[in-house]
């Protein structure tokens, strides 16, 4: 369960990193008629904060407890 969750989390991180890099590239490469450094800084800072918050939230998940919760609340699975 934990390995599967970690795999899904890594996929989510890759998707978010790709999105972050794409937006950053567009601002960095195609800026016309004035710089957008402040905006890029806000974006990168916000993304970094959300990555950290996401990691902290993921680390706090107790997968064993969730598995027990599912087993104990599903009539088709015998409780532990």
């Amino acid at each position, binding site marked *: 369960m934990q390995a599967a969750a970690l795999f899904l989390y890594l996929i*989510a991180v890759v998707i*978010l990193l790709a*999105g*972050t890099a*794409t*937006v950053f590239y*567009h*601002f960095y*490469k*195609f*800026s*016309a*008629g*004035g710089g*957008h450094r402040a*905006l890029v800084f806000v*974006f990168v800072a*916000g*993304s970094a904060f*959300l*990555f950290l*918050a*996401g990691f902290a*939230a*993921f680390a*706090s*998940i*107790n997968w064993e*407890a*969730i598995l*027990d*919760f599912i087993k104990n609340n599903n009539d088709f699975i015998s409780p532990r």
Partner: protein
Amino acid sequence: MILFRPDEKIIAVYRRHPVTLIFEIAPLVLFALVIIAGALFGGVFIPAKFSVLYPLILFLAVFFLHLFWIAAFIMLADFFLDVWILTNQRVIAVEQKSLFSRVVSECSLSKIQDTSIEIHGFIPTILHYGNLTVRTASEHQDFIFKNVARPNFISEEIARTAKEFAGAEQLKQTI
């Protein structure tokens, strides 16, 4: 990146009216606020039986907030990278169609024939923004300045700059 000629001077840079950006981003902000409220109130009101699921809910909330954050900045990129530049020699239109899709077109001021303004709706009328179409002698395309603020003022500015450009060209030929 746009390369300007050595003797070229930027007269003005136009973008869409900021209110159009607000209309685009507002639903996203609303959804984000609902997610934040759900995650915060979930911690208080979630029954003890389901409390084991709360960290998972929190993680999903952060994941969706991150997606919304990126989506909001894609909209901002679209807003800031859609730009129309008036120089003393030409008009340059840069349109960010979507991510990795960009159209840059330019037209010499000598080729501009006429302009027309379209303002439709209550809010554009109140806030003075709309579309300005610049018709050119080129058969390929007209330039449409989409949802720009004060299109009549821009139209006059283009006409004035085109006149000055024609005068300068005539002077060059005379000399």
